[in-house]
C-alpha cells in the first residue's frame, strides 16, 4: 500500500468563501468538510501515457497554418512533490487567452481581436526529471465583471494530475512585475503574501533563446508523501 500524503497547511490554498471574488458567494459549501482518510482510492491515480499528448500539443504557436501574433515565449520548469522529488510522466495541461487577452470561447465577448492562429490550449508529459516546457505567446490582461474597472493580470491556467487523486491541482501562473497584482481578488485570494509569490514565474535570460523567444521559468509543487504507511483516521 502506498503511503498517505501530507495534509496541506491551512494557509496554502485560498478559502472557498472569498467575498472579494464575487462568484464564490453561491459556489462554496457552507457545511464543514468531513475528514477523508487517505485510502487506496486517494493515494492512487490514473496512468495517462503518451497517447494523451499529440506531437505539437506543447507548442501553442504551431497549431494553425500561421504563427499567432504576440510576444513568443517559452514556459518551462519542474513538477515536484513536497519533498523536492520530480514527478515523472505526469500530464500538464494549460490554457490561456491570446496576446490581446481574448479567449477563444463563446462566452468571451470583450472587444479584443480573436487570433485565427491561436487556440490557446496545450499539454505535455513531464520527463524523467519532472521537466515540462511549452512554447506560446504571452497572454494579455483582460477585463472582467467582478467589480468596476476589474482586470485580470496576465496568467496561464495550469492543470496537474500528479500521480494520485490526493495530488490533483488546478492553478494559474502569473508573470513577474504585473501592475495588476494589487487589484486582483483571485491572485490575492491566497492570503499569505509569501505563498502568493509562488504563483509568479521568473524571467530567465539563461533560458531565453537568442533571436527567438524570451523564457519564463516556473516550478510547480504538489503534495509529498507522509512517512507513516497509512492513516488510521482522524
Amino acid at each position, binding site marked *: 500500500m502506498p503511503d498517505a500524503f501530507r495534509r496541506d497547511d491551512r494557509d496554502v*490554498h485560498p478559502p472557498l468563501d472569498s467575498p472579494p471574488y464575487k462568484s464564490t458567494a453561491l*459556489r462554496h459549501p457552507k457545511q464543514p468538510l468531513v475528514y477523508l482518510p487517505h485510502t487506496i482510492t486517494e493515494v492512487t491515480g490514473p496512468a495517462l501515457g503518451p497517447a494523451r499528448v499529440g506531437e505539437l500539443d506543447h507548442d501553442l504557436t504551431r497549431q494553425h497554418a500561421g504563427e499567432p501574433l504576440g510576444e513568443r515565449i517559452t514556459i518551462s520548469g519542474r513538477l515536484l512533490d513536497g519533498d523536492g522529488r520530480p514527478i515523472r510522466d505526469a500530464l500538464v495541461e494549460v490554457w490561456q487567452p491570446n496576446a490581446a487577452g481574448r479567449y477563444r470561447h463563446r462566452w468571451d465577448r470583450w472587444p479584443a481581436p480573436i487570433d485565427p492562429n491561436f487556440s490557446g490550449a496545450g499539454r505535455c508529459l513531464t520527463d524523467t526529471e519532472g521537466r515540462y516546457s511549452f512554447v506560446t505567446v504571452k497572454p494579455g490582461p483582460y477585463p472582467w465583471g467582478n467589480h468596476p474597472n476589474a482586470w485580470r493580470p496576465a496568467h496561464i491556467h495550469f492543470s496537474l494530475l500528479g500521480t494520485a487523486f490526493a495530488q490533483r491541482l488546478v492553478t494559474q501562473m502569473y508573470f513577474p512585475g504585473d501592475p495588476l497584482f494589487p487589484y486582483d481578488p483571485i491572485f490575492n485570494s491566497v492570503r499569505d503574501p509569501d505563498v502568493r509569490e509562488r504563483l509568479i514565474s521568473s524571467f530567465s535570460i539563461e533560458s531565453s533563446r537568442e533571436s527567438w523567444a524570451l523564457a519564463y521559468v516556473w516550478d510547480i509543487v504538489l503534495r509529498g508523501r507522509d512517512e507513516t504507511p497509512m492513516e488510521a483516521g482522524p
Partner: protein
Amino acid sequence: MSAPLTPSQTVGPYLALGLPWEDGPYAAAAGAPGAIRISGRVLDGSGDPIPDALVETWQSSPEIGVGFRAFARCPSDDDGRWFVLTLRPGPVPGPAGTTQAPHLDVSVFARGMLHRVVTRIYFADEADANATDPVLASVPPDRRETLLARLGNDGHRFDIRIQGLDETVFFDV
C-alpha cells in the same frame, strides 16, 4: 529537502478550452461489458445549474485484474449536466482493517471555486456494504443520502449541490 506547495487557483469560466477530452467521460469504453452510466447536475447555492463546472471521477476496478482507465472527466453543459460511463467499482480496503463499500472519488472544479471540492459517489443499491463503510460512518447520518447515487431510467443519478438545501457532503482530502 522540502519544497513549498503551489497554491490552488480557480479554473475560471473558460476551462472548456483546455480540459475536456473527446473521450473524457468514458472511463470505460462505450459498450464495454458491465458499463454503467452515472449522471447528474451541478447546482449552486440558489439551486441554479453551474454551466462552467468540470467533474472528474477516479475509482477502483470491479475486481483485481480488470484493466481500464478508471478516470473520467466531464464538463457540465448549459443545464449543469454531466455524465460518466464507467465500470462498477469493487470494494477496497479502508483504514484499520475495514472494507470500504464501492465508491468513486469526485473532484469538482468551476468558476467561482478557488480550489476543487471533493466528494464521493456511493451506490444506494449497496446497502449492506454501505452500512459498514468507514467513511460513510464518519458522515453525519442525516447527510449520508447526499453521497448515494440512485438507479433510475438513465442509469445512476448523482446531483452535486455545492451549497444550500441538501448540500452535498464534501471532504477534506
